[in-house]
């Protein structure tokens, strides 16, 4: 015997979520069946609303419920500095530090030909337009240290050099509060290469 069709369909849909396998999908589907109709209506409304209401910020491509996101519409932020990140979650990570007062630009991914992602699939044209229209004193490239992150950093550096004088990238260092002996060799080597004077 197999499950009734509507249930199968629901399991199939859940299984399309990232890192959800067949077993988890089944559990999620049964969870839905076991809840009150009211709760389920709320869930489906939340999904629809998020999809309909959340848009890309017209300036930085961050997620936003309005035309421009919270950060871009905050007048106390320094609009002369742009920190380029790959995904909104990276932006959130930097925001949590409260240590950066500039603005962001969200690329929407990293260059990866294997996944069919080239520069044209990222919001690079928007970034270029933004830099040439405004007075930007520094662009910080805050991307992963994977080969894809490195390729994107190199590419952006090349494209942005003619339009912005100061292009920086995040430093390579030891994880804070960590013991030196447990750092992997590559981290240690890079930390050595980018060492700085004491004080």
């Amino acid at each position, binding site marked *: 015997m197999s499950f009734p069709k509507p249930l199968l369909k629901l399991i199939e849909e859940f299984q399309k979520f990232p890192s959800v396998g067949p077993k988890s999908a089944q559990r999620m589907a049964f969870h839905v069946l076991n809840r009150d109709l009211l709760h389920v209506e709320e869930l489906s409304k939340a999904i629809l609303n998020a999809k309909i209401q959340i848009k890309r910020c017209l300036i930085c491509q961050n997620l936003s419920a309005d035309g421009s996101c919270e950060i871009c519409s905050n007048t106390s932020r320094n609009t002369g500095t742009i920190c380029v990140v790959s995904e909104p979650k990276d932006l959130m990570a930097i925001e949590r530090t409260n240590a950066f007062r500039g603005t962001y630009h969200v690329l929407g991914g990293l260059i990866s*030909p*294997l996944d069919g992602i*080239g*520069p044209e699939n990222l919001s690079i044209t928007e970034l270029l337009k933004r830099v040439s229209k405004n007075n930007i004193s520094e662009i910080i490239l805050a991307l992963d240290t994977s*080969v894809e992150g*490195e*390729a994107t950093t190199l*590419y952006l550096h090349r494209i942005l050099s003619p339009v912005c004088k100061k292009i920086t990238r995040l430093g390579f260092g030891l994880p804070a509060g960590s013991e030196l002996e447990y750092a992997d060799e590559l981290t240690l080597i890079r930390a050595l290469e980018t060492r700085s004077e004491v004080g």
Partner: protein
Amino acid sequence: MPWHISTVVCHNRLIVQLNKLKLVNYRNYENFEGNFDHLKTIIIGQNAQGKTNILEAINILATAQSDRAEKDSDLVLWNKEHALIFAMIQTKDSELEIALQINPSGRRKLKINDVTKKAPQADLLGNFFSVMFSCDDLYLIKGSPSNRRNWLDSVIFQLDSKYHRTMQSYQKSVTQKNALLKSTRETGLSKKSLKEQIEVWNDQIINSGSEIISTRLNFIEEIKPIAKEFQDNISRYTEELDLIYKCTISACNDKEALQFLFKQSLEKSFEEELSRGQSVIGPHRDDLTFLINGKEAKSFASQGQQRSIVLAVKLAELKVIEKRKDEIPVLLLDDVFAELDESRQDFLLHNLPENIQTFLTTTHISNIQKEFLKGAQILEIKNGKVTEMAKCV
């Protein structure tokens, strides 16, 4: 060629490095457990019973890869979720419990002394060392360039765990660049923007690629004189061995010069790479040449001479690992006595370090010299199960 004795002697018994090996759902073993307290372990069994599988598992602990499996799914007992290799290892200054889980998907998990490691491949390396002799070794001479590169890499992985990380990012960059080269056939990207995009991969390929080349060159410089001396001794000074790294760029040991040459060659081969849709130069295309008296062994050496070269090179490999790591690697002899004539067998046995832990497989105990059997532990294997354990006197 004397070897210093670095194995600890305690209560008249030698402490072996690999004390215990457990295999769960690994190849044809549902459940294997071996406790080793003798320097020599002889694994006897008919063909296809699982002898090599045990040596392969031990070798994975040292090199993080199998020399014969194409993908991790080959290592997992059919229809099982994952395989487990568990080992207890006594190094010169610590005791290690290694648990390596291998999933058919290629994902691995590694725990060392109960601590989960972040990089299951790179973090495995450098804890335990082994050198494997098998009848497939002749491919080192007569096989394809990839056979020789795989050998080079598996030895250097053991010596230098940074090399593994560099190799991983090199291969990733090459795969990405190949995908880009192939995709241009469909997307019809303009040549200018294609070049711009290729360059960000080339920059990384040059960086990691040059490091790979110079690490390989250094290794070859180190192993060459040792292998040469062994070859001199086997051949009674009639065969002079030489090893040459055949580089698709230009084998040169100065970092900046190498990077410059690499860049130049990549620029030159742009059109070719574009038309073939793949990267055609770099360490993933390099090769190693063995010469005897100035002539290429692959095409000129006799079978016997080729066997001698393999023997000399492998013994040299053992010596380089011991010198660099100050630890005698575990020796894995996969059915080699059936392959080697008596004089080469003698040569092998007389040039091994005195206290080397050895695992040897054979179909017939009569293939093995009496002298070697002394004090050995014997495991008889049938269809993935141990049927008998005995000790020789």
